């Protein structure tokens, strides 16, 4: 992808690299991130972010994904405590396709019962005055999260860049944080598998083998390997609280969160809210931007446009 060709300008070169990255996003999510996470385990400091930040064009017609990619790379050059990740979701553009939900489930190999970004499909009014709205609901990565101080062992906390994380190696699975979140953005990993009810019917054995090939490889949340397993001592994240991570493992590799990449309607925006020139800062400051349940006093870093 990055081979030097004399007929290309550096600008178009970068553009191609970014598009390539995004085109293979799904593939990358499943396979590449694994390889990268392996590499990262060996040398945790190294990331694949280019040394020279991606240039943001002033072209008004520039694709938002390309703009956000550039802004992401720029933000990753800063020290972690100077970044503040945020998300903006345009409810007028969301078509309710659930691609973000599915992309997230694939990226993080979520088992049944665990979901980070469901899309709430709400019907309003009575016939014939009916409308539908779609509300994707990731973790709000609240500025004042009620979930983190509740944790009795400090397993869940807010990182310097604003991302609220769960340390799977510490969490005791008491589920107090689940009760404390006003958005119910946390789910518990009960140790279930997609194949639990499989192998029934004629193609059972085949389906089982195929499905296990998918479910058994580890996932790479927080840039580590997680092989789930039950037993007297369950293997984390089984038995843990789980939640949206803003795809920290992808950010570390210079990639946008999976839900942003897979959003068909270009309705989800992501970036550094500390960067006044970023797309998310621009959108979050718009008059039609609001947050969910402002009365909860959580000051979400996820905004909605409506």
């Amino acid at each position: 992808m990055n081979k030097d060709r004399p007929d290309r300008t550096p600008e178009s070169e970068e553009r191609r690299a970014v598009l390539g990255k995004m085109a293979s996003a799904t593939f990358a999510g499943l396979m590449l991130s694994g390889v990268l996470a392996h590499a990262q385990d060996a040398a945790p400091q190294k990331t694949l972010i280019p040394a020279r930040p991606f240039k943001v064009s002033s072209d008004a017609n520039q694709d938002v994904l390309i703009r956000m990619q550039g802004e992401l790379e720029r933000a990753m050059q800063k020290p972690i405590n100077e970044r503040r990740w945020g998300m903006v979701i345009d409810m007028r553009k969301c078509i309710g396709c659930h691609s973000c939900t599915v992309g997230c489930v694939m990226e993080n190999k979520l088992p049944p019962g665990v979901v980070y970004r469901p899309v709430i499909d709400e019907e309003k009014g009575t016939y014939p005055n009916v409308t539908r709205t779609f509300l994707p609901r990731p973790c709000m990565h609240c500025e004042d999260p009620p979930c983190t101080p509740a944790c009795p062992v400090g397993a869940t906390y807010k990182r310097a860049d604003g991302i609220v994380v769960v340390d799977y190696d510490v969490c005791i699975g008491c589920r107090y944080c689940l009760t404390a979140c006003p958005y119910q953005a946390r789910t518990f990993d009960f140790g279930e598998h997609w194949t639990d009810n499989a192998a029934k019917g004629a193609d059972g054995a085949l389906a089982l083998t195929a499905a296990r090939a998918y479910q058994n490889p580890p996932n790479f949340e927080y840039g580590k390997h997680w092989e789930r397993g039950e037993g007297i001592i369950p293997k984390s994240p089984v038995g843990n609280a789980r939640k949206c991570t803003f795809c920290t493992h992808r950010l570390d590799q210079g990639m946008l969160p999976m839900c942003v990449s897979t959003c068909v309607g270009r309705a989800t925006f992501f970036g550094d809210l500390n960067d006044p020139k970023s797309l998310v800062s621009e959108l979050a400051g718009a008059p039609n931007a609001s947050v969910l349940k402002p009365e909860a006093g959580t000051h979400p870093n996820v905004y909605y446009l409506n």
Partner: protein
Amino acid sequence: MTRNTKILWALWIILALMGGIGIFERLTMGERLAAYTSYVPWGMWVAAYIYFIGLSAGAFLLSSLVYVFGVHKLERIAKLALFVAAITLVMSLLTIWFDLGHMERNYEVFTRPQFHSMMAWMVWLYSAYFALLLGELYYALRRDVKNLSPREIQEDDRKLKRLATIGIPLAIAFHGGVGALFGTVSSRPFWHSSIYPIMFLVGALLSGGALMTFIVSVIWPEKDEAWLDLLQFLGKIVLGFLLFDLLLEWAEYSIPLWYGVGPEADLVKFVLFGPFWYVHWIVHILFGVAIPVYLLTWKRDARSIGIASALVAVTFFAIRLNLVIPGLVTPELRGLEHAYVDPIGNRLSYHYIPSFFEWQVLMGVVALGLALFYFGQRYLPLMQTLNNREVSK
């Protein structure tokens, strides 16, 4: 063995077998057989935990009436109350331990202290309380096992008084803390109320007192005048707390319900008129309040007091269920339950009815508690008075 004893033994064996299987399943399969979900993340085990721990705090405070305030009427049951407090505490800790996703990491509550977490405080406080309880039991029972000189007994009494005096604020703090565990959760309108810590204390005194009254009514070795007198005194205590608890409950429900608008009102309506209305009206109000009040006010013979306090002690579990679960049954965001579903375990649902497996684990804990109690009252000198030993058989 009489016929009745045989039946009781048979029942206990069934309970223990079922419970044993449940606990074995819990240890080998984790929480997969439990019915609670990610949206109703706490279920019957949490309710059972706060129920047992309330019994413990209540029984303990009753014993403190003797050791700290010298209420002589209750002298004869002080040791028994301490012992019951210890057993119910063990039962509650076991229940909540089974509720953890990672049981093996429980020590982290001490190695990674979090001073802002109400749950951490609760664990620290009841650990301290457990240690204190064991100390008190030791000094209370030692004199009956070893031959102590009167001086040593006096010395032990002094230590007992000191421990029990520390124990009172500790028991109030830790059980108030259990109430605060719920009360501080601002995202749950049903729980988020300042009355909870106080309600928990009154509930503890009520349920613990009722349990002690029931036990005294059944297993006391000499059912004489003094015993009836003691029972009637205990019956009055139970009645008093029962009415006081009812008053607090009235405050808790009538305030949000008055104008009938708002999320809290909906949840109170769920408790009173929802699909599980009978838990409140039949189990709690009829069997837990109306019948006991009648028996304790107008009957007052030993049998009635025994039945009334048994009813109060057992049905109090319904109050605890009605505290934990309604706090969780409504979606925080409308329509969330339809946004994404779980076809395997149905964990993204607001529908919760305890599974048989959850009951089984609870049976195991109860069977263990009964066994401990049986051995204790058989081999420990629990039913002797503080200063003389003539009561024991």
